[in-house]
């Protein structure tokens, strides 16, 4: 036994010898996001996007911290009306393609590759994928399929919309689409592939007649799911899903050579372990969620950037709740034991709830002052964002409104309802409790139960109109008011629809502003929509997400951008001292 113990002790001693932290030419980032696919046509999450956009490149990208200004990447200049790149009242975009660019496999980039890539992404259009943005711009529809069947002539339309002319690629739109540059910069529609390599690896063969065979692949069946060949500064050295992703600098990169030779992005879900890795220098950066911020703030040799994101969370009033077997509305009547399905259709109820939210206390107590609350869904940092008046915290006013609601019946009878948020989000839970407690303090007959629901059920529940008041967030697909105001307010928008909020003026403005190219007219339309957010009070904006980027102090080069969240890292900018 003694011998065994001695051997074990020796092994432990040898094994415990400390090894150096992350090497100087290597960047180690520990996070908990998982990559679903490397196929740009199918990826629709920030983690996959980060990997893809360091390997592949798009025609243009955001200029530093700006979300409305772009810099050229594979295009030699950003098209504009002034340089003739945007013509025909915003219906034609011309991109001059950079020469001397090589893919990682040595093939040279041509205009043909660019046109093929843009078309190929739309042809693939996986179920639940991101191609709706490009399709809306280029084909005027959000999918290549309707009721499970491919729309007649859709591939011909896609094919004709992108044209090669000399060294340029021209995109023809059926009508002006002002957010197109933003879509091409951030989204996957503008990611450029090597045509020859893609076809050789089972991708779309480039012909219209075979396009249907490559449309809507099943999850995991996309041909470029685990392989990549871009023009970017890094190539994929190794990817072990949900474990680690290793980038290696490419030798034939056309641009300035990045400082870092290698980058490892490692999956680590456990916060304590991530924090210790940062503290010990085994990680150069870790993902920090808001609740752990204080643990990193005073850490030695660590610098922290807090970056407001184009992501808004709000509490949505549902004006047409599903009464069928719905425990969230009690009796389903205004008899003191529940609420009627159209309870929130009365604007007095909505306004009373808005007056019951103490913004200042929420910012200070829940977020330690580390958050801003936009006044409308058009978050700060988006174009045409406007400060609107807010329903100040005033319980007397809330009580007055409740007395007026439903002809006084709400106040006399009282009500019971459930307020929901998704499980595991402390900030949302705090907001729900705050609203519920304040409303209940108005009248002892008011009873609100706060309930958390698992995200998977939550997604299903709000879409079935099950929740009277549901808290949910939205992050930008592209930095444009259309992606927020239409989402939250239009009766066809992803949230407007499930709030059953319908205002004809809003719908008209949303549709008009999406296609209007005159910035002044667009601004007026979005300003009016924001005014209507205040007037109609369809929901309550709770906060604009702030992401925290914690780096070891020897890492330089991070440029914050509100479109690039805490799973993102632009590797070519980084340096280690």
């Amino acid at each position: 036994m003694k011998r065994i113990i001695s051997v074990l002790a020796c092994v432990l001693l040898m094994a415990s010898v400390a090894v150096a932290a992350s090497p100087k030419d290597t960047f180690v980032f520990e996070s908990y996001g998982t990559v679903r696919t490397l196929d740009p046509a199918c990826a629709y999450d920030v983690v996959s996007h980060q990997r893809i956009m360091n390997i592949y490149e798009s025609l243009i990208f955001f200029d530093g911290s700006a979300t409305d200004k772009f810099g050229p990447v594979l295009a030699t200049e950003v098209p504009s009306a002034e340089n003739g790149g945007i013509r025909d009242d915003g219906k034609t975009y011309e991109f001059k393609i950079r020469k001397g660019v090589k893919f990682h496999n040595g093939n040279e980039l041509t205009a043909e590759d660019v046109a093929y890539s843009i078309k190929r992404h739309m042809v693939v259009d996986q179920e639940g994928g991101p191609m709706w943005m490009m399709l809306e711009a280029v084909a005027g529809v959000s999918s290549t399929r309707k009721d499970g069947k491919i729309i007649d002539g859709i591939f011909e339309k896609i094919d004709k919309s992108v044209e090669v002319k000399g060294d340029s690629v021209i995109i023809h739109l059926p009508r002006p689409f002002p957010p197109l540059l933003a879509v091409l910069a951030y989204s996957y529609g503008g990611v450029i592939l090597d045509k020859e390599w893609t076809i050789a690896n089972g991708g779309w063969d480039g012909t219209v007649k075979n396009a249907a065979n490559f449309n809507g692949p099943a999850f995991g069946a996309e041909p470029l799911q685990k392989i990549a060949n871009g023009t970017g500064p890094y190539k994929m050295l190794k990817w072990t899903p949900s474990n680690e992703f290793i980038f290696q600098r490419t030798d034939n990169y056309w641009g300035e050579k990045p400082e870092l030779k290698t980058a490892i992005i490692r999956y680590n879900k456990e916060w304590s372990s991530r924090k210790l890795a940062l503290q010990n220098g085994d990680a150069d950066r870790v993902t920090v969620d808001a609740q752990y911020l204080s643990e990193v703030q005073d850490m030695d040799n660590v610098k922290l950037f807090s970056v407001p994101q184009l992501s808004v969370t709000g509490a949505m009033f549902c004006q047409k709740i599903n009464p069928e077997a719905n425990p969230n509305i009690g009796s389903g009547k205004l008899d003191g034991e529940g609420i009627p399905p159209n309870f929130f259709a009365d604007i007095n109820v909505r306004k009373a709830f808005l007056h019951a939210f103490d913004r200042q206390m929420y910012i200070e107590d829940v977020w330690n002052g580390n958050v801003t609350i936009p006044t409308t869904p058009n978050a700060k940092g988006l174009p045409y964002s406007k400060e609107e008046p807010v329903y100040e915290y005033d319980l007397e006013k809330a009580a007055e409104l409740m007395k007026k609601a439903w002809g006084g019946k709400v106040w006399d009878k009282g009500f019971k309802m459930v307020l929901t948020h998704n499980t595991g989000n402390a900030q949302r839970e705090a907001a729900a409790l705050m609203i519920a407690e304040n409303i209940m303090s108005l009248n002892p007959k008011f009873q609100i139960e706060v309930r958390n629901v698992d995200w998977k059920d939550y997604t299903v529940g709000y879409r079935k109109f099950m929740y009277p008041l549901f808290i949910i967030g939205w992050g930008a697909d592209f930095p444009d008011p259309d992606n927020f105001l239409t989402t939250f307010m239009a009766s066809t928008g992803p949230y407007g629809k499930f709030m059953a909020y319908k205002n004809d003026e809003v719908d008209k403005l949303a549709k008009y502003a999406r296609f209007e190219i005159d910035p002044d007219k667009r601004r007026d339309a979005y300003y009016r929509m924001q005014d209507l957010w205040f007037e109609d009070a369809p929901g309550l904006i709770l906060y604009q997400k702030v992401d925290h980027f914690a780096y070891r102090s020897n890492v330089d080069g991070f440029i914050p951008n509100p479109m690039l969240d805490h799973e993102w890292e632009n590797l070519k900018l980084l340096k280690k001292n």
Partner: protein
Amino acid sequence: MTAYIIRRLFFLVFVLFGVSILIFGLLSTFSPERRAAAYVTSPKQAENIPLIIQEYGLDKPFYVQYGKWVQQVAKGNLGWSLVAARPVAQAFWTYFPTTLELNLLASPLVIIVGIWLGTMSGVHRDSFFDHSTRIAAIVGWSLPTFLFALILLMVFYGYLGMFSPGILSSKLSLWVANHPDEFVRYTGMYTFDGLLNGRLDITLNALRHLVLPVITQVIVVVALLMRVMRSGMIEEMNKDYIITAKAKGADFKTIYKKHAKKNALIPVITVAGQLVALSMEGSIAVEVVFSRQGMGWWLAESATQLDMPVLMSVCMFVGLVFVTSNLIIDIMYAYVDPRIRLH
């Protein structure tokens, strides 16, 4: 004996069939929408839930879905894992060696330490040693694995800067990635592959990353073994043949080592099946805390993300391991005691 084994193997098929029906049935109690929502990571994709239900036939009757699953499994297709972003069968071979490595190193320690502690505790009943090991066993048994693992991590990695989590250091991980031809992954386990490739530094580095996970795993499982061994020893030491041996003046060490210990080991075989289950359970917390992507971690992630194909396959695998280990125990028993074979 052969007939007995064949009978038991035949029985194993039925057990696995029952397990699969049970798991599939339980998972089918989730609504089609909820299962389709597993493919939805953001509200932006929620529009596609009805299409996903249609495409994967999630609204079809139970027997249709089960039949389809069995058909696919028969073809060797275990489905696609959302968590692992690859086919389940492929992902299995990525994660399994990590868990196997942990348990291969932990199990001998569990057996050695558990049996030794149990024997000594039983032999020196009511001594200081007995009391202290029993208290330690109760603490080890009661303390949640997750918490114990976190404490170890804080102390060793947080304060002492030793034993970082993960599987291999960044430097060596990069070396392996850069030299796929020079470093052959024979087993998928770095400790063994390091030795097989003649890279002792990799073996030692992998061991360094295994110290805390193995300690945690051992502490979790050893308490059960120790308690069983202790009571076995106490029982044996009070039997007539031991008393007679003592009366004849036989050496005390010889008595408990040669006679009592051998007989006391028999009940240990009974709990071996439970030890396998405990190891699997322990692996979940150990792998999550120490950031080791193995089967336990995969199962935990799949459960939270409702990754159906993985839940089905991993549960079946755990069932298979459990049933097989019990079969081996039964065969061992039948070998030891021929009367069992006659039943």
